[in-house]
């Protein structure tokens, strides 16, 4: 018998994308429905690939998201699968456990949510599939969470559904920590994991798979996003392949501007990078963060004229396509080392004067005061995010760049 199922996780429906830096509503509109469009694409893909069931390994919603219409949207989408008789298996992740909104949802009967009190097994008799899973009862999970899963059911295709960070942090908070060998000991055929937003096939025997999140939400979540389509033949996993379902895409292009003569040449390199990124986006709206790196004498000018360069880069993006947006241009270049100043400062060496003033501890103290002054005016939620590192050096390079 041959069939397929889909494995998704970390939908985070209606979780807003990180700031695009776009004041133009038309640009914002390109990315506005990306998250919901990805959910709709997941349902459409489940139907189109004639999948026998859909697994969602946690974090359907953001924990602090209270808008119940988000849940109703998800229920409507699952309704499509229910009408076609396609069951959906869900474990609640740390975010779901924290979500007050999701508790009030009335899922269709074909949706089967794993209990949180203990791990349990749900069977699909006709397919001879045993699904083992356990939901998070609250945000934190006990260290032995993964050890509570039931034993393999012999003669069945055993699938473990688990929301975990595995042993490594992988850039996320550790939840339900366990090791690969811990999972292997269960003898399951497939571990459908969630929580890590980057797709990864951690192991193939047994299959331990993160599908990644359904829709990238920031420049840190780049590339294609979606779910895993798993093919089963005669009770054995034969193929696991990613399916891109995202409604919009993020990219982070690191552009080396070492040796460029001027901003125009730098802009040319940015344009090349954007073209590559856009070609890889499969026609989806693309938001790209461009980080300029390398050692260049333009360092100061790039810092000083970052906004202009960003506007030019955006214009270059629009030349490529109407949905090719540059989220931000970050200047991560460095200036070439300057020759040491003479022991006695030259009265006309303004650069040396600036360097000396920038190295003055009093200047650093003044900058710290400035940072505090501004932080006091920020909304409470943003105060923790507002920090400028290496402020004195940045100010020095910025000033020098403005002088050029």
């Amino acid at each position, binding site marked *: 018998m041959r069939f397929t199922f889909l494995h998704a996780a970390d939908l985070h429906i*209606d*979780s*807003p994308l*990180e*700031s*695009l*830096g*776009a*004041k133009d509503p038309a640009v*914002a509109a390109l990315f*506005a429905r990306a*998250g919901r469009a990805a959910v709709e694409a997941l349902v459409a893909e489940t139907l189109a690939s004639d999948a026998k069931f859909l697994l969602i390994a946690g974090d359907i919603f953001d924990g602090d998201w*209270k*808008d*119940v*219409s*988000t849940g*109703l*949207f998800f229920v409507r989408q699952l309704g499509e699968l229910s009408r076609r008789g396609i069951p959906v298996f869900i474990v609640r992740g740390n975010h779901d456990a924290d979500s*007050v*909104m999701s*508790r*009030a949802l009335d899922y269709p009967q074909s949706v089967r949510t794993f209990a949180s009190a203990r791990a349990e097994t749900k069977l699909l008799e006709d397919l001879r599939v045993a699904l083992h899973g356990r939901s998070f009862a609250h945000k934190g999970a006990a260290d032995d969470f993964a050890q509570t899963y039931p034993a393999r059911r012999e003669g069945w295709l055993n699938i473990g559904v688990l929301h975990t960070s595995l042993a490594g942090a992988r850039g996320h908070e550790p939840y339900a920590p366990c090791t690969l060998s811990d999972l292997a000991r269960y003898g399951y055929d497939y571990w459908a994991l969630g929580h890590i937003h980057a797709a990864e096939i951690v192991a193939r025997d047994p299959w331990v798979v993160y599908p990644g999140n359904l829709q990238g939400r920031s420049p840190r979540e780049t590339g294609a996003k979606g779910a895993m389509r798993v093919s089963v033949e005669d009770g054995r996993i034969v193929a696991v392949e990613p399916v891109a379902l995202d409604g919009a895409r993020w990219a982070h292009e690191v552009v080396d501007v070492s040796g460029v003569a001027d901003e125009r040449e730098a802009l040319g390199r940015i344009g090349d990078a954007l073209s590559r990124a856009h070609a890889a986006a499969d026609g989806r709206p693309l938001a790209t963060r461009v980080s300029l790196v390398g050692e260049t004498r333009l360092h100061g000018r790039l*810092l000083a004229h970052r*906004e202009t360069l960003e506007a030019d880069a955006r214009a270059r993006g629009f030349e490529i396509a109407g949905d090719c947006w540059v989220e931000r241009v970050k200047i991560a270049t460095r200036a070439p080392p300057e020759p040491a100043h*003479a022991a*006695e*400062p*030259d*009265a*006309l*060496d*303004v*650069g*040396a*004067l*600036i360097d*000396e*003033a920038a190295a003055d501890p009093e*200047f650093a103290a003044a*900058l710290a005061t*400035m*940072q505090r*002054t*501004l932080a006091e*005016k*920020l*909304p409470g939620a*943003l105060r923790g*995010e*507002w920090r*400028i590192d290496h*402020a*004195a050096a*940045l*100010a020095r390079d*910025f*000033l020098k760049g*403005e*002088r050029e």
Partner: protein
Amino acid sequence: MRLEKLTLSPYGRFADLALSFRRDAPLHVVFGANEAGKTTALSALGDLLFGFPVQTTYGFRHDQKLLRIGGAIRLADGSLLELRRRKGNLNTLLDADDKPVSDVALLTALGAVDRRIFESEFGLTARALREGGSALLRAGGGLAETIAASSASLSALSKLRETLQSDADKLFTSRKVAGKDFYVALDAYEAADRKLREATVTADALKATNEKWRALSLKEAELKSDYEVATRHLAKLQRAERTHRKLKRLAVLSDELAAFVDLPCVDAASLEAWAAAQREDREIAARLSQLAAETATADAEIVALQVDEALLEEGAAIDGLSQGLSAVRKAREDLPRRLEARHQAVAQLDEIGRRLGLPGHAALLDRQPSDAELARARTAIDARKRADERLELARGEAERRRVDSERLLAASFAAARDPEPLSRRLAPLADHLADADRLRRERTAVEAEARTLAEGAVRLDPPVADLDALARAPLPDAVTLARAARREAELAEALRAAQRDVTEARRDAETAERALRTYERDAVGATRADWLYARERRDRAFDQLGLLLDGEAAERRERFEDARALVAAADALGDSVVADTERAARLQTAREDCSARRENLARAEANSARLEAERATAADEARALWAPADVAPRSAEAMARWAERAGALLQRRDALTTRRAEAAALAEKLAAAREVVARALADLGRSSPESFEAAYREAQAEREAMTQAWIAAREAMGARESAARAAEDAAGEAARWLDASRVLLADWPAAVAPLALGAEATVEAAEAALEAWRAVASPRQAMGREGRSIEGIEGDLQSFAASVAAMAAKVAPELSAARPEEALKQLGERLARARAAQQSRAQLLKTAAQRAARQRAENLRRESVVATLAAAAARLSASDPGALALALERLQNRRTLEDERAQLARDIAEIGDGLDEAALGAEQGELDPSLLPGEIELARARQAELWQAIPEAARVVRDAQAAHDGLAQGRDAAGAARERNEARGAILDVAERWFLRQAAARLAGRAIERHRAAAQDPLIARAGELFRVATAESFQRLGTDYDDADRPTLVALRADGEKVKVEGLSEGARDQLFLALRLALLERRAGEALPFVGDDILASFDDSRTRMTLALLADFGRARQAILFTHHRHVANLAAAAGADVLEL
């Protein structure tokens, strides 16, 4: 570093130029007139040190690959660096054989200085010098800013700091200001946050809307149920209302139909057929009678009609002629106009022929020239006219130029004199104008102050007539005045108290005396004897009353009343006698009180008198105090104030005296200056006005006039040469046009011959003839066109008349003699009448045929009706038509009743809502028909009430459902969250932008401040020395002061220690200060000293300031090389006189 040699071979306009600079010369001046290559040499120096720029402008004459600049540079260590430079990107330094050499030594010497720094710091143009002076003014004297302004780089940094600070302030300030980017983004964030909260649909909110929706739905269902019940009840009542009368009528009909049981059963169709036949028989008879009458009338009309058949046959031809009638009328009207037009065309041609000397239009048309001939004539005429005009203009211009040239040759400019000597004599006095102005203002102010003081002295109370006398007189001191004022105040207070005591004591005494008088007056009352006498009279009256008790009642009453009055009088006197005792006691008391109060009054009056005496003594003392000043004093307090005011006036008087002395000194200084100006004017043969200002201005005006005259003389010399050349050019032009005119005259006869003119014809005659020939075309065409039209019209009219005459002869010979239009009109009218008669006859015949057909049809129908009536009579056993009619009537009545009964049954079936008669009867058994309307109204009202409530309930349910559905669909909370995220990003972006700009501005300020702190003392000291030289020791040095904000400021110090702020310096002095600061800054440079290069920086200075500034540059040039480029000869001369080396390009 000193430049010792500079070679340009080749470079710019120079193929091989070498400039040598003497090693020990304090100042080099490179002189070159305009276009001599001064700028080229300047640029060459930069190219030598730093290389050719990519786009050089000095390769216009020579191949760029061949451009070379050479130089010899003496470094600070004494070594000589000989260089050659070519254009290129790499290895551009060459040796004598054009082989690349290392540039390490040069780069080491240059250090951090690049071309931009060299040109901006070591180079200085006149414009940059003036802008530098202005920058010092803008710096407001602030030391750090002033020092920064003296350096191009630091000045740029200072401006950049201001720009950055301005940019930062636009983004964010700690005080919230709407419109700043940060607060705009913050507001957007908070708005989006609010929007998110409002857009978030919570589970509780959704549940609440769901429950509300369901509750309202239940309420709506109940309303609908009630409505159904009410509707059924109303239907029952309305049904009864509709049917109860019909049910009753049905019962009546059953009784009436019982009377027709003897009639046979006849089906309705037969009965209807019989009745119809009976009606139709009567109708047919009436119609046949009508038709017979109409036939008779129509026959008579046909006989009366007459038709002209012959005329009708020619009808089409007559119509054709009538249609052509309008064309004939138009042709008749058109013919005279065309005849007139042809006549006018012929007349015009005759007139043109006359103008050209030809006998008539026929001859004219024979001589008509071709268009080509006319064009050639036109060309020839235009050419001759143009040549004549140009010749005339050229001759006029030549004459004017000749006159101008002769006038300029005759003019003399010997009177013009060089204004420079006078300028030099006046230059030192330029500042004295300000002194004169100051003196005038000072004098005015002094006079105004004197007037004010005099007025103030007079306004004092007591007034002071002579303030100077008052100043000399001894005045009481403040302590004495205060003591006197205090004593006066105490006496016044005591006196006021004593007077108050007197007043109160007097008031008390008067009150006591008034009381005593009252008691004394009251003491004159009833005595005891009076009382005893009254008692006796009372008793006597009682006795008399007792005697009359048996008498008349009236008398008894009278006596009783008398007795009662006497009793009352006696009682009153008794009371009075008792009261007298108390009154006497009060009187005694009042007398004692009055005496005591009189004594008090006497004491108070004595005290008051004593105090008055003391006050008089004090006044005498005060007068003695003010007597030496000849002032009649007022009160001590007023005099204390008087003394203060007088003292203030005396202080101002002292200050005024000082200012008068200063003004006098200034006047002496100006008088001396006026003598200098007077001598200068006398040398010019001019008298001098008395005042310095007038004299100086007159001298300046004279200098200006001399300058103007001097310039005018120079310009006039050039104009004289130009005028001579212009006169020659104009004469040549006139000769050329004369030759051209002769050539045209030779071709003239052939050109004008086609115009019927001879060779002697003038241009004007030829133009007139040409115009006349051009006028021929229009009348010639008109004459031909009108002639053809006239022939056509006349032929058409003749043809029409002939056709009409022929028609008349055929159908109406009596019209043959009439005019064609009249005859045709008559024929038309007759034809119309014949056609009308013909049409009437045809219509009558057609109607008669139709009527005959109808008569036949009526007769045929009557046969069928008669057969039907016969069958009915047989069925009903009616022996005659009367019996048949009666039987049919009864049958009809029975039929009517049956129909009514059937109709009622159908009605009940229709309006009984499906109930039969029995069911309706049962349903209405309990209803009272008379009450039905009222009950129906009530039921209808109830139903309407429910009906109206249902839509509202439904609407409320819909709203609730929509609210629920809307909530379920969401309120775009995700969009609001997205907006918040964008606003968050915007805030952080603005914060970063602000921080960078604010931090950079702070950093720039700190850098400038560090420079000031490091350079201030030695820089100010050295710049002060240079400034002293530059101002010919008008200023001794520079120093620092502090402004109101305790900020260090730069000041220039005169020999007497006077501090002059930057804004107090003249424009030229500020420029010199800027130059001194710039040069002092260059001297402080740690690296190799590069030459300072000035580009015409003295152009705006007068000779005096130029000399001083040359001295400044020479002073600088003793330690560092100074090179000055100029195109002013006098600057070069002054420099040479000052010991500078002058190189000429």
